[in-house]
Protein backbone atom coordinates (compact mmCIF):
# COMPACT_ATOMS: atom_id res chain seq x y z
CA UNK A 1 0.00 0.00 0.00
CA UNK A 2 1.64 3.29 -1.04
CA UNK A 3 1.38 6.16 1.42
CA UNK A 4 2.06 9.83 0.85
CA UNK A 5 3.89 11.74 3.55
CA UNK A 6 2.34 15.10 4.41
CA UNK A 7 4.77 17.48 6.10
CA UNK A 8 4.31 20.95 7.58
CA UNK A 9 6.98 23.07 9.25
CA UNK A 10 6.88 25.62 12.06
CA UNK A 11 10.11 27.57 12.12
CA UNK A 12 11.36 30.12 14.68
CA UNK A 13 14.12 32.49 13.46
CA UNK A 14 15.84 35.03 15.71
CA UNK A 15 15.80 38.48 14.09
CA UNK A 16 18.85 40.70 13.96
CA UNK A 17 18.58 44.04 15.80
CA UNK A 18 20.52 46.08 18.34
CA UNK A 19 17.79 45.91 20.99
CA UNK A 20 15.16 43.29 21.81
CA UNK A 21 11.65 43.43 20.31
CA UNK A 22 9.77 44.99 23.26
CA UNK A 23 12.56 45.96 25.67
CA UNK A 24 15.70 48.08 25.32
CA UNK A 25 18.06 45.27 26.34
CA UNK A 26 20.82 44.26 23.92
CA UNK A 27 19.75 41.66 21.36
CA UNK A 28 22.88 39.53 21.01
CA UNK A 29 24.56 36.35 22.18
CA UNK A 30 26.57 36.64 25.40
CA UNK A 31 28.78 34.14 27.16
CA UNK A 32 27.89 35.74 30.49
CA UNK A 33 24.40 34.80 31.75
CA UNK A 34 21.91 37.61 32.54
CA UNK A 35 24.08 40.19 30.87
CA UNK A 36 21.49 41.58 28.40
CA UNK A 37 18.44 42.22 30.58
CA UNK A 38 16.05 45.08 31.29
CA UNK A 39 13.06 45.16 33.69
CA UNK A 40 10.55 43.99 31.07
CA UNK A 41 12.61 40.84 30.30
CA UNK A 42 12.04 39.84 33.95
CA UNK A 43 8.35 40.86 33.90
CA UNK A 44 8.92 43.16 36.88
CA UNK A 45 5.60 44.57 38.08
CA UNK A 46 4.47 47.65 36.12
CA UNK A 47 6.69 47.16 33.05
CA UNK A 48 5.24 47.67 29.53
CA UNK A 49 6.24 46.40 26.05
CA UNK A 50 7.40 49.03 23.52
CA UNK A 51 7.69 47.69 19.96
CA UNK A 52 11.11 47.99 18.26
CA UNK A 53 10.59 49.87 14.97
CA UNK A 54 13.41 47.90 13.29
CA UNK A 55 11.89 44.48 14.15
CA UNK A 56 8.51 45.72 12.93
CA UNK A 57 10.05 46.69 9.55
CA UNK A 58 11.99 43.43 9.24
CA UNK A 59 8.80 41.41 9.84
CA UNK A 60 7.03 43.39 7.10
CA UNK A 61 10.03 42.95 4.79
CA UNK A 62 9.92 39.15 5.19
CA UNK A 63 6.16 39.21 4.56
CA UNK A 64 6.87 41.05 1.28
CA UNK A 65 9.71 38.68 0.30
CA UNK A 66 7.49 35.62 0.95
CA UNK A 67 4.65 37.22 -1.10
CA UNK A 68 2.26 37.20 1.87
CA UNK A 69 -0.97 39.13 2.20
CA UNK A 70 -0.30 41.92 4.70
CA UNK A 71 -3.13 43.09 7.03
CA UNK A 72 -4.26 46.71 7.31
CA UNK A 73 -3.16 46.85 10.98
CA UNK A 74 -0.31 45.24 12.92
CA UNK A 75 -1.98 43.57 15.90
CA UNK A 76 -0.40 41.60 18.75
CA UNK A 77 -2.00 39.01 21.03
CA UNK A 78 -1.14 37.30 24.28
CA UNK A 79 -0.48 33.55 24.40
CA UNK A 80 -1.05 32.66 28.08
CA UNK A 81 0.79 29.72 29.69
CA UNK A 82 3.02 29.14 32.73
CA UNK A 83 6.65 27.98 32.43
CA UNK A 84 9.79 29.15 34.27
CA UNK A 85 11.30 30.38 30.97
CA UNK A 86 8.32 32.75 30.47
CA UNK A 87 8.49 35.40 33.24
CA UNK A 88 5.33 37.30 32.18
CA UNK A 89 3.26 34.09 32.15
CA UNK A 90 2.30 35.00 28.59
CA UNK A 91 4.14 35.48 25.30
CA UNK A 92 3.33 38.48 23.10
CA UNK A 93 2.74 37.01 19.63
CA UNK A 94 0.35 37.45 16.72
CA UNK A 95 -2.73 35.30 16.32
CA UNK A 96 -5.60 37.56 15.29
CA UNK A 97 -3.86 39.20 12.31
CA UNK A 98 -0.36 37.83 11.61
CA UNK A 99 1.94 40.22 9.73
CA UNK A 100 1.83 37.89 6.71
CA UNK A 101 -0.63 35.18 5.58
CA UNK A 102 -1.01 32.92 2.54
CA UNK A 103 2.51 33.46 1.29
CA UNK A 104 4.72 31.32 -0.93
CA UNK A 105 8.35 30.32 -1.28
CA UNK A 106 9.35 28.78 -4.63
CA UNK A 107 12.23 26.27 -4.38
CA UNK A 108 14.12 24.12 -6.90
CA UNK A 109 14.55 20.44 -6.19
CA UNK A 110 16.00 17.94 -8.71
CA UNK A 111 15.23 20.34 -11.54
CA UNK A 112 11.61 20.76 -10.46
CA UNK A 113 10.10 24.05 -9.23
CA UNK A 114 8.01 23.60 -6.09
CA UNK A 115 5.90 26.40 -4.59
CA UNK A 116 5.78 25.81 -0.84
CA UNK A 117 2.68 27.55 0.49
CA UNK A 118 3.08 29.53 3.72
CA UNK A 119 0.15 29.62 6.13
CA UNK A 120 1.43 32.64 8.04
CA UNK A 121 4.43 34.42 9.47
CA UNK A 122 4.20 36.30 12.74
CA UNK A 123 6.46 38.45 14.93
CA UNK A 124 6.84 37.34 18.56
CA UNK A 125 9.34 37.23 21.46
CA UNK A 126 11.67 34.44 22.57
CA UNK A 127 11.68 32.78 26.00
CA UNK A 128 14.55 32.76 28.54
CA UNK A 129 16.97 29.81 28.29
CA UNK A 130 17.11 27.09 30.95
CA UNK A 131 20.31 25.24 31.97
CA UNK A 132 19.52 21.92 33.68
CA UNK A 133 22.33 20.90 36.04
CA UNK A 134 21.89 17.87 38.35
CA UNK A 135 18.71 18.56 40.28
CA UNK A 136 18.39 22.27 39.60
CA UNK A 137 17.46 24.46 36.66
CA UNK A 138 19.24 27.81 36.18
CA UNK A 139 17.43 30.56 34.29
CA UNK A 140 19.31 32.95 31.94
CA UNK A 141 17.10 35.82 30.73
CA UNK A 142 19.49 36.99 27.98
CA UNK A 143 17.26 35.41 25.34
CA UNK A 144 14.01 36.52 27.03
CA UNK A 145 12.36 39.03 24.68
CA UNK A 146 14.64 38.49 21.69
CA UNK A 147 12.65 39.13 18.46
CA UNK A 148 11.48 35.97 16.68
CA UNK A 149 9.75 35.43 13.37
CA UNK A 150 7.67 32.27 13.26
CA UNK A 151 7.09 30.87 9.78
CA UNK A 152 4.27 28.31 9.55
CA UNK A 153 3.82 26.40 6.29
CA UNK A 154 0.73 24.56 5.08
CA UNK A 155 1.20 20.75 5.24
CA UNK A 156 2.14 20.75 1.56
CA UNK A 157 5.54 19.06 1.46
CA UNK A 158 5.84 15.36 0.76
CA UNK A 159 9.46 14.34 1.48
CA UNK A 160 12.34 15.09 3.82
CA UNK A 161 14.31 16.50 0.88
CA UNK A 162 11.53 18.97 0.07
CA UNK A 163 11.43 20.08 3.68
CA UNK A 164 15.21 20.54 3.88
CA UNK A 165 15.30 22.35 0.51
CA UNK A 166 12.63 24.72 1.84
CA UNK A 167 14.64 25.34 5.03
CA UNK A 168 17.84 26.05 3.07
CA UNK A 169 16.11 28.41 0.69
CA UNK A 170 14.48 30.25 3.57
CA UNK A 171 17.78 30.47 5.45
CA UNK A 172 19.49 31.94 2.36
CA UNK A 173 16.71 34.49 2.00
CA UNK A 174 16.95 35.44 5.67
CA UNK A 175 20.71 35.92 5.33
CA UNK A 176 20.49 37.74 1.99
CA UNK A 177 17.95 40.20 3.34
CA UNK A 178 19.94 40.43 6.60
CA UNK A 179 16.72 39.82 8.52
CA UNK A 180 18.39 36.99 10.46
CA UNK A 181 21.80 35.32 10.59
CA UNK A 182 19.79 32.07 10.76
CA UNK A 183 22.66 30.19 12.36
CA UNK A 184 21.25 26.84 13.50
CA UNK A 185 24.39 26.17 15.59
CA UNK A 186 23.56 29.22 17.74
CA UNK A 187 19.94 28.13 17.96
CA UNK A 188 18.87 31.10 15.88
CA UNK A 189 16.71 28.83 13.74
CA UNK A 190 14.61 26.21 15.49
CA UNK A 191 12.17 23.93 13.72
CA UNK A 192 9.05 21.94 14.71
CA UNK A 193 8.02 19.34 12.12
CA UNK A 194 4.50 17.98 11.63
CA UNK A 195 4.35 14.60 9.88
CA UNK A 196 1.34 12.52 8.89
CA UNK A 197 0.77 9.82 6.29
CA UNK A 198 -2.25 9.30 4.09
CA UNK A 199 -3.15 6.80 1.44
CA UNK A 200 -1.99 7.84 -1.99
CA UNK A 201 -4.69 9.98 -3.64
CA UNK A 202 -6.57 10.48 -0.37
CA UNK A 203 -7.38 14.11 0.35
CA UNK A 204 -8.08 14.43 4.08
CA UNK A 205 -5.23 14.37 6.57
CA UNK A 206 -4.71 11.67 9.18
CA UNK A 207 -3.55 12.32 12.73
CA UNK A 208 -0.47 14.49 12.65
CA UNK A 209 2.56 13.91 14.88
CA UNK A 210 4.54 16.95 15.99
CA UNK A 211 8.32 16.66 16.39
CA UNK A 212 9.55 19.56 18.53
CA UNK A 213 12.79 21.55 18.50
CA UNK A 214 14.73 19.87 15.70
CA UNK A 215 17.72 22.16 15.52
CA UNK A 216 19.67 21.30 12.39
CA UNK A 217 18.65 20.60 8.82
CA UNK A 218 20.38 17.21 8.93
CA UNK A 219 18.29 16.31 12.00
CA UNK A 220 15.13 17.53 10.25
CA UNK A 221 15.85 15.13 7.39
CA UNK A 222 16.57 12.22 9.73
CA UNK A 223 13.58 12.95 11.95
CA UNK A 224 11.15 13.09 9.03
CA UNK A 225 12.45 9.93 7.40
CA UNK A 226 12.39 8.08 10.73
CA UNK A 227 8.84 9.25 11.43
CA UNK A 228 7.62 8.28 7.96
CA UNK A 229 9.06 4.79 8.41
CA UNK A 230 7.65 4.46 11.91
CA UNK A 231 4.15 5.40 10.78
CA UNK A 232 4.40 3.30 7.62
CA UNK A 233 5.35 0.22 9.67
CA UNK A 234 2.42 0.78 12.03
CA UNK A 235 -0.01 1.22 9.13
CA UNK A 236 1.33 -1.84 7.31
CA UNK A 237 0.88 -3.92 10.46
CA UNK A 238 -2.69 -2.66 10.79
CA UNK A 239 -1.75 -0.80 13.98
CA UNK A 240 -2.65 2.62 12.49
CA UNK A 241 -4.58 3.46 15.64
CA UNK A 242 -1.32 3.62 17.53
CA UNK A 243 -0.44 6.74 15.59
CA UNK A 244 -1.86 9.33 17.99
CA UNK A 245 -1.80 13.12 17.97
CA UNK A 246 1.22 13.68 20.16
CA UNK A 247 4.42 15.65 20.54
CA UNK A 248 7.68 13.77 20.08
CA UNK A 249 11.28 14.87 20.27
CA UNK A 250 14.14 13.86 17.97
CA UNK A 251 16.95 12.02 19.71
CA UNK A 252 20.18 12.74 17.86
CA UNK A 253 22.21 9.77 19.13
CA UNK A 254 19.67 7.13 18.18
CA UNK A 255 18.26 9.10 15.24
CA UNK A 256 14.76 8.29 16.47
CA UNK A 257 11.71 10.29 17.60
CA UNK A 258 10.54 9.74 21.18
CA UNK A 259 7.15 10.59 22.63
CA UNK A 260 7.42 13.54 25.05
CA UNK A 261 4.21 13.98 26.97
CA UNK A 262 1.49 11.59 27.91
CA UNK A 263 -1.35 14.07 28.43
CA UNK A 264 -1.93 15.46 25.06
CA UNK A 265 -5.12 17.47 25.44
CA UNK A 266 -4.24 20.75 23.84
CA UNK A 267 -3.29 23.47 26.35
CA UNK A 268 -5.73 26.40 25.98
CA UNK A 269 -3.57 29.48 25.52
CA UNK A 270 -6.50 31.86 26.15
CA UNK A 271 -5.42 34.21 23.33
CA UNK A 272 -6.63 37.85 23.45
CA UNK A 273 -5.46 41.11 21.86
CA UNK A 274 -2.51 42.71 23.70
CA UNK A 275 -4.05 45.82 25.31
CA UNK A 276 -0.68 47.57 25.91
CA UNK A 277 0.14 47.75 22.19
CA UNK A 278 -2.27 49.84 20.08
CA UNK A 279 -3.20 48.62 16.59
CA UNK A 280 -0.57 50.05 14.21
CA UNK A 281 -1.66 51.22 10.76
CA UNK A 282 0.68 49.60 8.19
CA UNK A 283 1.40 52.48 5.80
CA UNK A 284 1.73 52.03 2.02
CA UNK A 285 4.80 54.26 1.75
CA UNK A 286 6.58 52.17 4.41
CA UNK A 287 5.91 49.02 2.38
CA UNK A 288 7.20 50.74 -0.76
CA UNK A 289 10.35 51.84 1.07
CA UNK A 290 10.90 48.29 2.40
CA UNK A 291 10.35 46.77 -1.06
CA UNK A 292 13.12 48.99 -2.44
CA UNK A 293 15.51 47.71 0.22
CA UNK A 294 15.07 44.06 -0.77
CA UNK A 295 18.25 42.88 -2.61
CA UNK A 296 18.11 40.47 -5.60
CA UNK A 297 17.36 37.16 -3.92
CA UNK A 298 19.43 33.94 -4.21
CA UNK A 299 17.14 32.14 -6.63
CA UNK A 300 16.99 35.12 -9.06
CA UNK A 301 20.77 35.52 -8.92
CA UNK A 302 21.35 31.82 -9.62
CA UNK A 303 19.06 32.06 -12.67
CA UNK A 304 21.00 35.15 -13.84
CA UNK A 305 24.40 33.45 -13.32
CA UNK A 306 23.37 30.31 -15.21
CA UNK A 307 21.16 31.77 -17.97
CA UNK A 308 23.08 34.95 -18.73
CA UNK A 309 26.65 34.41 -17.53
CA UNK A 310 26.36 30.67 -18.28
CA UNK A 311 28.18 29.64 -15.18
CA UNK A 312 27.92 26.04 -14.05
CA UNK A 313 25.20 25.10 -11.55
CA UNK A 314 28.01 24.31 -9.10
CA UNK A 315 29.68 27.73 -9.37
CA UNK A 316 26.31 29.50 -9.22
CA UNK A 317 25.44 27.61 -6.03
CA UNK A 318 28.82 28.53 -4.47
CA UNK A 319 28.31 32.21 -5.28
CA UNK A 320 24.75 32.48 -3.90
CA UNK A 321 25.71 30.85 -0.61
CA UNK A 322 26.76 34.21 0.72
CA UNK A 323 25.26 37.58 -0.12
CA UNK A 324 28.50 39.55 0.21
CA UNK A 325 30.32 37.06 -2.05
CA UNK A 326 27.51 37.29 -4.63
CA UNK A 327 27.55 41.11 -4.43
CA UNK A 328 31.38 41.08 -4.88
CA UNK A 329 31.04 38.84 -7.92
CA UNK A 330 28.24 40.95 -9.42
CA UNK A 331 30.33 44.11 -9.00
CA UNK A 332 33.16 42.37 -10.95
CA UNK A 333 30.74 41.61 -13.78
CA UNK A 334 29.52 45.21 -13.73
CA UNK A 335 33.17 46.31 -14.11
CA UNK A 336 33.10 44.24 -17.30
CA UNK A 337 35.38 41.44 -16.13
CA UNK A 338 34.37 38.42 -18.16
CA UNK A 339 31.72 36.67 -16.00
CA UNK A 340 33.35 33.26 -16.35
CA UNK A 341 36.84 34.55 -15.64
CA UNK A 342 35.60 36.48 -12.59
CA UNK A 343 33.75 33.42 -11.36
CA UNK A 344 36.86 31.23 -11.70
CA UNK A 345 38.92 33.47 -9.46
CA UNK A 346 36.15 34.31 -6.97
CA UNK A 347 35.06 30.69 -6.47
CA UNK A 348 38.64 29.41 -6.10
CA UNK A 349 41.48 31.72 -5.08
CA UNK A 350 39.40 34.22 -3.18
CA UNK A 351 36.96 31.69 -1.69
CA UNK A 352 39.93 29.63 -0.36
CA UNK A 353 40.83 32.62 1.87
CA UNK A 354 37.26 32.84 3.14
CA UNK A 355 36.95 29.15 3.91
CA UNK A 356 40.44 28.91 5.48
CA UNK A 357 39.78 31.41 8.27
CA UNK A 358 35.97 31.53 8.08
CA UNK A 359 36.17 35.11 6.83
CA UNK A 360 33.67 37.30 5.04
CA UNK A 361 34.71 38.77 1.69
CA UNK A 362 34.51 42.19 3.31
CA UNK A 363 37.37 41.18 5.60
CA UNK A 364 39.73 40.81 2.62
CA UNK A 365 41.73 43.79 1.33
CA UNK A 366 41.01 42.96 -2.29
CA UNK A 367 38.16 44.78 -4.06
CA UNK A 368 36.41 44.14 -7.39
CA UNK A 369 38.30 47.15 -8.83
CA UNK A 370 41.68 45.61 -7.92
CA UNK A 371 40.65 42.25 -9.39
CA UNK A 372 39.64 44.10 -12.57
CA UNK A 373 43.16 45.62 -12.88
CA UNK A 374 44.81 42.22 -12.40
CA UNK A 375 42.55 40.27 -14.76
CA UNK A 376 42.76 42.93 -17.47
CA UNK A 377 46.53 42.38 -17.44
CA UNK A 378 46.01 38.65 -17.82
CA UNK A 379 43.52 39.13 -20.64
CA UNK A 380 46.03 41.29 -22.62
CA UNK A 381 48.72 38.67 -21.92
CA UNK A 382 50.85 41.01 -19.89
CA UNK A 383 50.87 38.43 -17.10
CA UNK A 384 50.14 34.70 -16.91
CA UNK A 385 47.27 33.27 -14.87
CA UNK A 386 49.90 31.99 -12.41
CA UNK A 387 51.19 35.53 -11.99
CA UNK A 388 47.65 36.81 -11.67
CA UNK A 389 47.03 34.41 -8.78
CA UNK A 390 50.31 35.47 -7.17
CA UNK A 391 49.29 39.10 -7.51
CA UNK A 392 45.92 38.40 -5.88
CA UNK A 393 47.68 36.58 -3.02
CA UNK A 394 50.01 39.56 -2.53
CA UNK A 395 47.18 42.09 -2.56
CA UNK A 396 45.30 40.06 0.05
CA UNK A 397 48.29 39.13 2.21
CA UNK A 398 50.28 42.36 2.02
CA UNK A 399 47.16 44.49 1.90
CA UNK A 400 48.73 46.66 -0.82
CA UNK A 401 47.20 48.12 -3.99
CA UNK A 402 47.92 46.40 -7.32
CA UNK A 403 49.80 49.43 -8.77
CA UNK A 404 52.07 49.59 -5.76
CA UNK A 405 52.98 45.90 -6.05
CA UNK A 406 53.55 46.14 -9.80
CA UNK A 407 55.77 49.24 -9.43
CA UNK A 408 58.42 47.75 -7.20
CA UNK A 409 58.52 44.38 -8.92
CA UNK A 410 58.80 44.34 -12.71
CA UNK A 411 56.47 41.59 -13.36
CA UNK A 412 55.76 42.24 -17.01
CA UNK A 413 56.00 39.03 -19.07
CA UNK A 414 58.56 38.73 -21.88
CA UNK A 415 56.61 37.87 -24.94
CA UNK A 416 58.78 39.77 -27.47
CA UNK A 417 59.78 37.06 -29.98
CA UNK A 418 63.24 38.41 -30.94
CA UNK A 419 64.25 38.71 -27.29
CA UNK A 420 63.00 35.15 -26.58
CA UNK A 421 64.85 33.81 -29.66
CA UNK A 422 68.12 35.23 -28.30
CA UNK A 423 67.64 33.52 -24.95
CA UNK A 424 66.56 30.18 -26.51
CA UNK A 425 69.59 30.18 -28.82
CA UNK A 426 71.84 30.82 -25.82
CA UNK A 427 70.30 27.82 -23.97
CA UNK A 428 70.56 25.51 -26.97
CA UNK A 429 74.16 26.58 -27.74
CA UNK A 430 75.26 25.55 -24.25
CA UNK A 431 73.47 22.19 -24.32
CA UNK A 432 74.66 20.51 -27.57
CA UNK A 433 74.62 16.93 -26.18
CA UNK A 434 71.08 17.24 -24.77
CA UNK A 435 69.91 18.36 -28.25
CA UNK A 436 71.28 15.07 -29.75
CA UNK A 437 69.67 12.97 -26.98
CA UNK A 438 66.40 14.87 -27.62
CA UNK A 439 66.54 14.02 -31.34
CA UNK A 440 67.35 10.37 -30.44
CA UNK A 441 64.03 10.07 -28.64
CA UNK A 442 64.40 11.56 -25.15
CA UNK A 443 61.60 14.02 -25.83
CA UNK A 444 61.12 14.98 -22.17
CA UNK A 445 64.31 17.02 -22.53
CA UNK A 446 62.02 19.62 -24.18
CA UNK A 447 60.91 20.69 -20.65
CA UNK A 448 64.62 20.87 -19.69
CA UNK A 449 65.15 23.48 -22.41
CA UNK A 450 61.97 25.40 -21.35
CA UNK A 451 63.21 25.32 -17.73
CA UNK A 452 66.48 26.82 -18.85
CA UNK A 453 64.67 29.74 -20.52
CA UNK A 454 62.47 30.27 -17.42
CA UNK A 455 65.57 30.30 -15.19
CA UNK A 456 67.25 33.03 -17.24
CA UNK A 457 64.04 35.11 -17.47
CA UNK A 458 63.08 34.38 -13.81
CA UNK A 459 59.75 32.91 -14.96
CA UNK A 460 58.77 35.94 -17.01
CA UNK A 461 59.06 34.28 -20.46
CA UNK A 462 55.64 33.82 -22.00
CA UNK A 463 55.26 30.02 -21.99
CA UNK A 464 53.21 29.58 -25.16
CA UNK A 465 55.46 31.76 -27.34
CA UNK A 466 58.66 30.22 -25.86
CA UNK A 467 57.48 26.68 -26.73
CA UNK A 468 56.67 27.70 -30.34
CA UNK A 469 60.15 29.21 -30.97
CA UNK A 470 61.94 26.33 -29.17
CA UNK A 471 60.23 23.69 -31.32
CA UNK A 472 61.22 25.52 -34.50
CA UNK A 473 64.87 26.02 -33.32
CA UNK A 474 65.20 22.34 -32.39
CA UNK A 475 63.99 21.38 -35.85
CA UNK A 476 66.71 23.51 -37.43
CA UNK A 477 69.41 21.77 -35.31
CA UNK A 478 68.45 18.23 -36.22
Amino acid at each position, binding site marked *: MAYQAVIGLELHCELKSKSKVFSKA*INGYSEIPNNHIRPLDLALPGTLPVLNFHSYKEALKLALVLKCEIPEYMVFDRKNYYYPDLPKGYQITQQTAPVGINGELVIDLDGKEIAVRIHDIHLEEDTASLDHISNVTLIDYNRSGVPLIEVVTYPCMHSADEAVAFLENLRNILKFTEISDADTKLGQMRCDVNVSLRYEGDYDLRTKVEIKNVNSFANVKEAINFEINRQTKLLDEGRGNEIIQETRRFDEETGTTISMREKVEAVDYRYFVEPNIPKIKIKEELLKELKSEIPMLPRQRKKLYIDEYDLSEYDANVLIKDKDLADFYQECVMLEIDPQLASNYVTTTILSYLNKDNLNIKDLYITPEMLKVILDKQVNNEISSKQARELIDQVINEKKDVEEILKNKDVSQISDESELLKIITEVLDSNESQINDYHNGRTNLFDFFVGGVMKITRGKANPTITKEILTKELEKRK
Partner: protein
Amino acid sequence: MMNNFTKEIIDTYAENLLFRLSEEENALVLNEFVDIEERMNLINKIPNLSSVEPMSHPFPLDDVILREDIHEESLSVDDAFKNAHKVTNREVEVPRVVA
Protein backbone atom coordinates in the same frame (compact mmCIF):
# COMPACT_ATOMS: atom_id res chain seq x y z
CA MET B 1 -26.52 25.11 31.63
CA MET B 2 -25.46 24.04 35.08
CA ASN B 3 -23.73 20.92 33.84
CA ASN B 4 -20.53 22.54 32.69
CA PHE B 5 -19.84 24.23 36.04
CA THR B 6 -18.85 21.50 38.45
CA LYS B 7 -16.56 21.52 41.44
CA GLU B 8 -14.03 19.44 39.49
CA ILE B 9 -13.99 21.79 36.52
CA ILE B 10 -13.42 24.75 38.79
CA ASP B 11 -10.56 22.95 40.50
CA THR B 12 -8.93 22.23 37.14
CA TYR B 13 -9.22 25.89 36.17
CA ALA B 14 -7.54 26.84 39.45
CA GLU B 15 -4.80 24.24 38.96
CA ASN B 16 -4.12 25.53 35.44
CA LEU B 17 -3.75 28.97 37.05
CA LEU B 18 -1.28 27.56 39.60
CA PHE B 19 -3.34 27.83 42.77
CA ARG B 20 -5.72 25.69 44.80
CA LEU B 21 -9.17 26.67 46.10
CA SER B 22 -10.55 25.83 49.51
CA GLU B 23 -14.01 24.24 49.73
CA GLU B 24 -15.62 27.60 50.50
CA GLU B 25 -13.70 29.39 47.75
CA ASN B 26 -14.77 26.69 45.27
CA ALA B 27 -18.41 27.06 46.32
CA LEU B 28 -18.10 30.87 46.06
CA VAL B 29 -16.79 30.55 42.50
CA LEU B 30 -19.47 27.98 41.63
CA ASN B 31 -22.37 30.34 42.31
CA GLU B 32 -20.43 33.20 40.81
CA PHE B 33 -20.40 31.17 37.59
CA VAL B 34 -24.15 30.76 37.76
CA ASP B 35 -24.45 34.52 38.22
CA ILE B 36 -22.07 35.22 35.29
CA GLU B 37 -24.05 32.77 33.16
CA GLU B 38 -27.34 34.56 33.82
CA ARG B 39 -25.90 38.01 33.30
CA MET B 40 -24.08 37.00 30.14
CA ASN B 41 -27.38 35.74 28.82
CA LEU B 42 -28.57 39.33 29.27
CA ILE B 43 -25.77 40.41 26.99
CA ASN B 44 -26.64 37.88 24.36
CA LYS B 45 -30.14 39.39 24.20
CA ILE B 46 -28.71 42.55 22.65
CA PRO B 47 -29.79 42.50 18.98
CA ASN B 48 -27.24 41.92 16.16
CA LEU B 49 -24.41 41.83 18.68
CA SER B 50 -22.42 39.36 16.60
CA SER B 51 -22.05 41.92 13.79
CA VAL B 52 -20.28 44.36 16.16
CA GLU B 53 -16.47 44.27 16.07
CA PRO B 54 -15.00 43.44 19.51
CA MET B 55 -13.23 46.45 21.08
CA SER B 56 -9.80 45.73 22.59
CA HIS B 57 -8.57 49.32 23.09
CA PRO B 58 -10.65 52.33 24.31
CA PHE B 59 -10.01 54.28 21.05
CA PRO B 60 -7.56 54.02 18.15
CA LEU B 61 -4.38 56.10 18.24
CA ASP B 62 -3.68 57.71 14.88
CA ASP B 63 0.10 57.77 14.92
CA VAL B 64 1.57 55.14 17.21
CA ILE B 65 5.21 55.97 17.95
CA LEU B 66 7.52 52.95 17.75
CA ARG B 67 10.87 52.67 19.56
CA GLU B 68 14.12 53.37 17.71
CA ASP B 69 16.38 50.31 17.70
CA ILE B 70 18.76 51.61 20.39
CA HIS B 71 19.75 49.41 23.32
CA GLU B 72 20.40 50.41 26.92
CA GLU B 73 22.92 49.03 29.35
CA SER B 74 21.90 45.78 31.05
CA LEU B 75 20.62 45.67 34.62
CA SER B 76 23.22 44.44 37.08
CA VAL B 77 22.52 40.99 38.48
CA ASP B 78 22.19 42.52 41.94
CA ASP B 79 19.46 44.88 40.80
CA ALA B 80 17.73 42.37 38.52
CA PHE B 81 17.53 39.65 41.17
CA LYS B 82 17.28 41.92 44.23
CA ASN B 83 14.00 40.23 45.18
CA ALA B 84 14.72 36.81 43.66
CA HIS B 85 14.49 33.67 45.76
CA LYS B 86 17.83 31.99 44.90
CA VAL B 87 20.68 33.14 42.66
CA THR B 88 23.65 30.92 41.73
CA ASN B 89 26.52 32.47 39.77
CA ARG B 90 24.45 35.07 37.97
CA GLU B 91 21.46 32.81 37.28
CA VAL B 92 18.13 32.35 39.08
CA GLU B 93 17.86 28.84 40.47
CA VAL B 94 14.72 26.71 40.74
CA PRO B 95 14.24 22.99 41.32
CA ARG B 96 14.87 21.07 38.11
CA VAL B 97 12.05 21.32 35.59
CA VAL B 98 11.50 18.84 32.82
CA ALA B 99 13.13 20.21 29.64
